[in-house]
């Protein structure tokens, strides 16, 4: 049994008369501590997978087991609790609360979790000790994304989900962010799932899930993932 298992998961939307299938019999397994990249073009259904995994959406059928809990039958409240305690998110546009400092943004997440890390420590870990009391607007994109990561990991989630985390970042900053994510996986044993259309990121992953046209096209595992520094795109 994997740490995360998605079995024959379907996601269908009813749009007017026609049915759109966003996920068509998606099945995969992710082991604990792995850095996974879900790769696919726009509309391949990768975000749907991420949403389902993150408890932000429910699938239409199929099982989603996270650490032995099948969250596919969760109600809204259970899902919220799941998000609260077990999932950390990192988004393309950081989604920091503009009105809160870096530290406060982290604290915002920590507030509601019981076994959380110290926000200041986490921020120090992501190299933002000196920017702790700055507001997002005062931070660069990379810094903001690091704050977002700090916010996501500070609550010690079972799973860290990242949606195009480098999408809005320049090359260098993007690499810095990826580095942190990889470090999370490697050093802290956090299970990290990165959703991206950027195939260049595939080499750094322990496991790469290729999606196309709402289906899992292939799953490949890298026995030796590459270092971020070697990465070129």
């Amino acid at each position, binding site marked *: 049994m994997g740490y995360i298992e998605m079995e024959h998961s379907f996601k269908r939307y009813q749009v007017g008369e026609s049915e759109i299938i966003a996920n068509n019999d998606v099945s995969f397994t992710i082991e604990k501590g792995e850095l996974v990249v879900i790769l696919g073009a726009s509309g391949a259904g990768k*975000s749907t997978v991420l*949403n389902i995994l*993150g408890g*932000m*959406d429910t699938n239409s059928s199929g099982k989603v087991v996270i650490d032995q809990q099948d969250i596919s039958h969760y109600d*809204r*409240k259970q899902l*919220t*609790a*799941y*998000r*609260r*305690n077990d*999932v950390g*998110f990192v*988004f*393309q*546009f950081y*989604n*920091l*609360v*503009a*009105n*809160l*400092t870096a530290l*406060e943004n982290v*604290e*915002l*997440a920590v*507030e*509601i*979790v019981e076994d959380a890390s110290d926000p200041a420590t986490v921020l120090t870990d992501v190299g933002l000790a000196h920017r702790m009391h700055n*507001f*997002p*607007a*005062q931070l660069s994109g990379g810094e903001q994304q690091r704050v977002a990561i700090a*916010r996501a990991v500070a609550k010690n989630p079972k799973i860290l989900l990242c*949606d195009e985390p480098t999408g809005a970042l320049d090359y260098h900053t993007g690499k810095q962010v990826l580095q942190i994510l990889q470090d999370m996986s490697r050093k802290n044993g956090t299970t990290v799932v990165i959703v991206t259309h950027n195939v260049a990121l595939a080499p750094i992953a322990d496991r790469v899930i290729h999606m196309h046209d709402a289906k899992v096209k292939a799953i490949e595992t890298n026995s030796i993932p590459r270092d971020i520094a070697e990465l070129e795109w």
Partner: protein
Amino acid sequence: MMQMKKTVWKDIRQSFRKSWGRFFSIMILMALGSFALVGLYVTGPNMRTTGTTYLNARNVADLTIIGEYGLDASDQAALATLTDVNALEYLYVKDVSIAQTHTSVRLFSQPKTISTPELIAGRLPRQSGEIAIDASQQADYPLGSIIHIDEKADQSGTKVIAKSEFEVVGYIQSGDFLSLATRGPSTTGTGQLDSFAIIHPSDFKSDVFMMAKLRFDSLIELNPYSDAYLEQLQIEKDHVYAVLAGQPEIRLHELKTTYNQKITTGQQAINEGEQELDNAAKQLEEAATLLKEGQQALVANEQLLLSAEAELEQAKQELRENEVLLQNTDTELQRTDEILREQQALLAGKQQEYEQGVQTLQGKQAEYNQAVADIDQAQQTITEQYKQLATAKQDYTRGISELEATIFALEQALGDEALDDAARQQLLAQLEQVNQQLKAVTSAYTLFLQQTYEPGVIQLDAAQKQLDQQTQQLQTVPYEIEAANNQLAEANLQIASGQAQLLAGKAAFADGYAHYESGVQQITTAKQQLITATTEYQMGKEQLADGQSELIEQTSLYEEQRKKYEQELPTATKLLAESREELATAREMVEQLVAPTYRVDTRRELLGGDGYKTYSSISNIVDSLAMIFPVFLYFVAALVTLTTMTRFVDEERLNSGTLKALGYDDYDIIKKFCVYGFVASLIGTILGIILGHTLMPTIVYQAYRSEFTVPAIEWHFHLGITLSALALAIMSSVIPAYIVAKRELREQPATLLLPKAPESGDKIFLEHFPGIWRRLTFTQKVTCRNIFRYKKRMYMTIFGVAGAAALLFTGFSVQHSVSEIKSRQFDTITHYDLIVAENPLASMPEQQQLSEQLRTPAVKNYAPVYYEEVTRVAGAHNDTQAITLIVPEEPENFAQYITLKARKTQQPLELMDEGAIISERLADLLHVEIGETLPFVDQNGEQRQVEITAISEMYIGHFIFLSPSGYEKLYRADYESNAYFTTLIDSSSENTKVAASQFMQLSAVAGVVQNTSIMSLIDTIVTSLNQIMAILIFVAMLLGAVILYNLTNINVSERIRELSTIKVLGFFDPEVTRYIYREATILTIFGIVGGWIIGMGLHSYILVVVPPDEVMFNPARWIGAYIIPVLVIAIISLVLKFFVNRRLIHIDMLEALKSVD
């Protein structure tokens, strides 16, 4: 190009469809704003237009003049000099009451042109005895029914109304009496006028008119509610005053002259009466003198008569003596005469004897001759008779022989046998007859022999014997005759001597007699004289008797007159005394006569004009509200709309950027927002304009309609305010949209395509106080930050909520302020039920009646006060404010009737020896404070001023209170009470009316003031204000709901990413809601507090501007006014929270997080 435009319009249509909530919000906000603005703005003018139409239709007088002593020819002449008069009419007026009721009615003669009555039903009086009464009496007095009236006579006892029964012929309303309930004071009934009516002028018997009604050319065209009218009216009023300026003195003089004439006439009458009495007395006296004189004269006459009588008596005596003398003479004469006569008689006797002797002798000679003749005769007779007897005897014998011969013949005849039977028979019968004859003759012969013959022979024999004797006797007689002749001759000699003697005596007698005769003559004359004298005396006596009887008659007449005089004297004296007294009273009255006052009343000041005043008060109230609320509402609505439009532009940023990138020009993009804002606000505004023109006036009309006779409020279209509302709508929606959009479009299309950078966070000032900041929990910190982060929204929330809260606060505060007036005034301040004003001219018994009435069990207690109506011009309309000046005789007990206390401290106030306590509203109107002086005009028109020692809580009416000593110092006059404050056991309005009318019936009562008189007026204002406030409260609630809905909506949509983020972070739904609501709540609380503060200001402003001059709204604030807005907003928030919750639940977190918009 066309294509492009089409797309823009399509985009605009789409934007409506996507945001109905926002669209309706703007619409409703604009509708509310324009409804309040238009509604409050048009209602007042509409009311006034309605009023003007009505007043013009009825041609209601601009000025009404009432002369205290009526308006006589000189007054009329004075008024005739006025220029600019459009119409002038004189009326008779008199207050009466309906018999057996307390209903007072003011009777008018029918005005022809001015203040014409409006006929509701029936017709106007055409002849005496008909009445058209005001329509409020319709139920009690149907057409054709009879109204009996009671008229109270005036001081001089005269009545004006000729009749006491009137037939109801119609129902009217009058522009002079707009109010149905409050019609001012009356001199009858309960002291309050209940009704009015028109009767035929002939039913008034008055020398003067009581009232003049005037319309002026310069005022006809003016709006009666305008300042121009008021100013011009004041000018005309001044003209009238100027024209009438001399009249009081003229009238006083005239009146005094008339009265003095009357007094003089009266005095003359009294004098005449006295004269008459005097004359009567004098006449009586004269009569008495005359009677006495008469009596004296009578006595004198009597005396005279008596002496006359004595003289007469003497004369009589003398006469009698003379008579006696004469008589003696006469007697002597008579004796002489007698003697003479005796002698003569003797002589005559002798003569007679002699003649007798002669005669006797002659007789005896004759006798003798006769006797010889007689004897011869007798002898002849006897011889004759002898012969006769013998003859008779021979006759018989011859007869018998003849018969016997016949018998024989017959017997012979019978013997003849030849005789037939018949002859026989006849012969037989003849025989028989002859036999019988024989028989009879035989018997007769026998009888003759026996009875005649034989006695006759005897007698004759006797007679022969006697005759023989007589012849014998006669033979002596011739001798005797001879002797006698001798004697006679001797006697004849004697007689002759006697005759000679007698003749001598007779001569002597004749002499004596002549003497006597002259004596008799004398006496006769004397007697005659005596008779004359006696007659005269008798006449005198008769005259005296006449005089006496006349005297008696006269005396009785005199007595009668005297009695009459004495009987009538007390009455006459009494009458005279009364007349004198009356005259004295009249003189006193004339002394006391003061120059009459002329009331020159505008429509506002007219007795019974309270309705007019209240009506315009209400319209002014609405006006003054129109100055506050809509401005406020619009401010808030504009603010909210601005925020909403800003948000709309923000939301459409990407869209705009796309369009702009596609090459649309700014105009097209801006047009979208402008059209959106314009359409939304236009629809709302039109809705508001329509409702404002119709609903608001109707609601206000419903609130006051029951009080007034004014017709239903007219709906007029007000272009100005309509355009203003539209302009405001454009200003608060289109212009902000334009500005916001324009500003945004300054950016490059590329930038526009990117999401707007979220507003950056910043440290708030609170963070500079680490002591406080650190103590806050994380969420509190976040909340604080967020509050200050969205400044626009913060202001909008605070102002929006504050606006709604302020309106609610004001609405409830005003409702409370007005609803409390009555209870506070009558429960805690005034406790009396009636003020009974004494009539200064009342007599002692009349005053006695009053004090008896005051002591009846129905009266709980009473206290004497001095009461005066003083005035002061004050207030927004420069009205003459009626101020009641009250001086209690016993200030220490005054609290039983009026509690004087400071409103804020509720501490009782005391009347000082000097200075006055005045009522609060008066102090407010005049802006005077404790320690300052208050000038006023007293009842005699004199200017006075008094220092204010305290200001007393008082809601209804203006008052000045003085202590008796304070009064004496101020007026420099002795204190004397002239009225009574009275509380009744049963203070119900019904009973108060009964008691009031009982007092009114007393002559010692000049008037009764019920403290309820102003009530219906206040009720109307209260009702109207309550209605308007209810509308405002409703508007405020709606406004609050829209504002909160919009704010929440904006808050949510503007922060959708943030909310999605925290949702993704695992905030439970309630936590998410709370995250938003915490700030909203805090802002709302700020808003409410702000609302309270603004509300207080509004409330204070309304307290100053809105109330009629004589009414104070209770300024005390009500705790409910604070609480209710909180509750209302809390409820709205809770309801919205429910919707927000639902929305938050359905937020598509991912979409929000991913999308760039």
